[in-house]
């Protein structure tokens, strides 16, 4: 682990433990469109029992971030738009160390909370300005800035780059 990664871990822990939810309330607003992401586990804010459910508009309402990078699964550089994982975790008041992410084909992978940094993992919902269909690995695809650093071009990071994401469980 590089010192940079260490610092990232520390910042992420700080973020998860201390940051207040953006809404400033325990109750998140309810989704109006189709639910594309369900967050469960160690979270402080919910809107359906102990889960937090999001439709596309709710995610778009959060601070957006863009990452332009190529991937090993697509051709050429792509401009991804989405919500930074750290922003989303803060929004639901997550306090765990691990995010168990699951795709619609039941592919599951664990993403450490340390990946949730302002420059780290991105929950992309747009590709080159257009929404991502399921056939284009949408509606949500965890993207890392692969081109930005060799640290993001490892098998572990590729395995965390889960597409067709629909669930996240925050674990202690």
């Amino acid at each position, binding site marked *: 682990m590089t010192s940079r990664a260490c610092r990232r871990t520390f910042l992420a822990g700080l973020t998860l433990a201390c940051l207040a939810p953006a809404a400033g309330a325990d109750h998140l607003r309810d989704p109006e469109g189709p639910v594309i992401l369900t967050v469960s586990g160690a979270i402080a804010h919910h809107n359906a029992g102990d889960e937090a459910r999001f439709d596309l508009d709710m995610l778009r309402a959060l601070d957006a971030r863009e990452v332009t990078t190529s991937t090993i699964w697509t*051709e050429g550089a792509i401009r991804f738009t989405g919500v930074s994982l750290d922003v989303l975790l803060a929004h639901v008041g997550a306090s765990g160390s691990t995010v168990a992410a699951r795709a619609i*084909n039941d592919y599951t992978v664990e993403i450490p909370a340390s990946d949730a940094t302002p420059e780290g993992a991105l929950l992309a919902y747009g590709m080159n300005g257009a929404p991502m269909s*399921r*056939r*284009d*690995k949408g509606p949500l695809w965890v993207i890392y800035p692969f081109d930005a650093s060799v640290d993001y*071009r490892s098998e572990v990071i590729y395995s965390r780059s889960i597409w*067709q994401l629909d669930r996240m469980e925050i674990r202690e």
Partner: protein
Amino acid sequence: MEQTGLIHRFGAGLLTALALVCALITGILAAQLAGELRALAGNSTDNVQWSLSQSEVEFLEFQAALARARHSDPPDLEAVRLEFDIFYSRVGTLEAGPIYSDMRAQPEFDAALTEIRTFLDAAAPRMDAADPALIAALPDLSDSAATLRHALRRLTVSGLMQFAAVMDDRRMAIRRTLTRLAVVALALVGVLGFLAWYSHRVGRQALHHGRALAEARDRALAGEKAKADFLAVMSHEIRTPLNGILGNVALLEDSDLDADQARFVRNMGVSGRVLLDHVESVLDLARFTPGRIALTQESLEVDRLLQDIVDSQDSHALAQGNRLSWAWVGTPERRICADRAALQQILLNLVSNALKFTRHGEVRVEVEVDARTEARGEIEFRVIDTGAGIAAADLPHVFDDFRTTDASFGRIAGGTGLGLGIARRLVQAMAGEIGGESTLGQGSVFWVRLPILRPAEESPAETAAPERLRILVVEDNAINLDVARDMISRLGHSVTPARTGREGVAAATAEAFDLILMDIAMPEMDGLAAACAIRSSGGASAKTPIVALTANVRPEDRDRFRAAGLSTILTKPLQKDRLIRLLARLGAVPTATEDTPPDDIPPGLRARFDRETEELLAWLASLPEDRADIARRCHRLAGTAAVFGQADLRRALIALEEAARAGVPFAQFGVLAERLADLRADRAAPGEGGRARLPEARLRSVP
């Protein structure tokens, strides 16, 4: 040797270059390997096998969803659409992902992918259609999917085969690189090992050479030391008998001789001293490199010096029909300060050299003093001959050691060829110059220029008031002891003789002497040990100056002598002038009352001496048989005779003692006994001016 060194250097350079090349190749290979490993580590392949097998799994899921939809009511169309989309997405990855480009280049893989794409393109509008249309299309989709199953199988199998081949190639490449790296590394290790061995060997050789060099040096030094030791011993062996000769000549000189005899004896003395100086010069040549010759400054009479040399060489000159003379040029200088022995040696060498090459001609010595200041000046001696001369080509070499101009030299002149070499060394040591000019057939001029000190006219020592000293002489050699004893008594001092170191120590402990003369080379207790014992005894003479009497003095000896408590050194044979100078330094000068009995001997002692003399003479007249007894009694009385200044009697007694020791038939003692009787007759008429003379001719007739 130089060539070997060159090869060594060349070999070492080659090996070093080889090692550098190996290191370079290792570096390149390591970089290459690192690149390959990075390609392996910085994984751009994802899990290709996973993705391929997953495409098949997802297709089966899609087929299963289709089957379930067909046989259930209402059909779960959403599941069908989901599984289709998942599969669609997977195929899209296989079509677009750069990591599958190699696979797509495979015709079989590409054909299968095209077939799948055709299906997807056809199925997609139906999936997107309204539910009833999709329900209607389900059987057809199910059939198409069943057909597509084989294409999917071909896709995954060919993909995996290709992937395996690629991975194999990559592993092989890494293996090849690793093998090359290992080979080069081995070579590098080998070369380095060889270099290490080589440098070790060179180091050992250097060490060996160094050791051999050190051994050679040690051997050379040991050889030099052996030579020096040999010379020192030989000098002792030569000088001890020479001491006897010179001492006796000196005594002879002081006896009553007619004019001719006096001249012969004086010439003998001069030649003897020249012989002594020769021995010393040879030793000097061997022992001293220029700059290490120890020179003394003493006041000497130039006239006397030159006259002595001319006198000593006169017979030699006459034998060759040469005239030998010397003369002042300019204002004569009575005395100069210089090393007498060195100066004498130089001039003697030049003169004898000139005489060697001159037949029926003339050798002339000119001397000239250039008085620069009151105290300093320069003296020049010129030895001019009318001899054979020296060729111009040979002239520069005549001062080399062991130099003779040609083979005939030895035949004509004899000699060691050392003469001019020694002269050069001495002149250099005296900070002077020496040179020569010559014309073949006409003659040569050799000149010497020396810086000198000009002493004040009279030495105060020679006018100092007389003082009588008590002197202990420790000397194992009977003749040397007698000579020393006699010489000292003639100078008006009293002598206590000691024949061994122990005797000397005993005497010095019992009595306070003014001076102790100590022979160095003695059996049992040598002079150094005796001097030490006297110094540490705390006895009556513990503080008395002790002077070493020795023939062999090496520079390193002086320190040893000083350490043993010896004040200074008198070289043997003991010479009167040197002894006088030494005594003068001690504050005493000779009274020069030769054969004059000391005034302060108590009358009782005198009477006893007379009685003992009478007794011995009477006893001898009875022709005793015991030789040892004769020798002992003569010896004892001879010592006493010396104290009383009875030189003639003493000498006669010594001659008798020697004859007795030598085992001369007693019949031949007769002459000696007769002589003693004469002496007794002389003694019977005291006050008579003409003291009895010991006729040398008669003494010599004794075998």
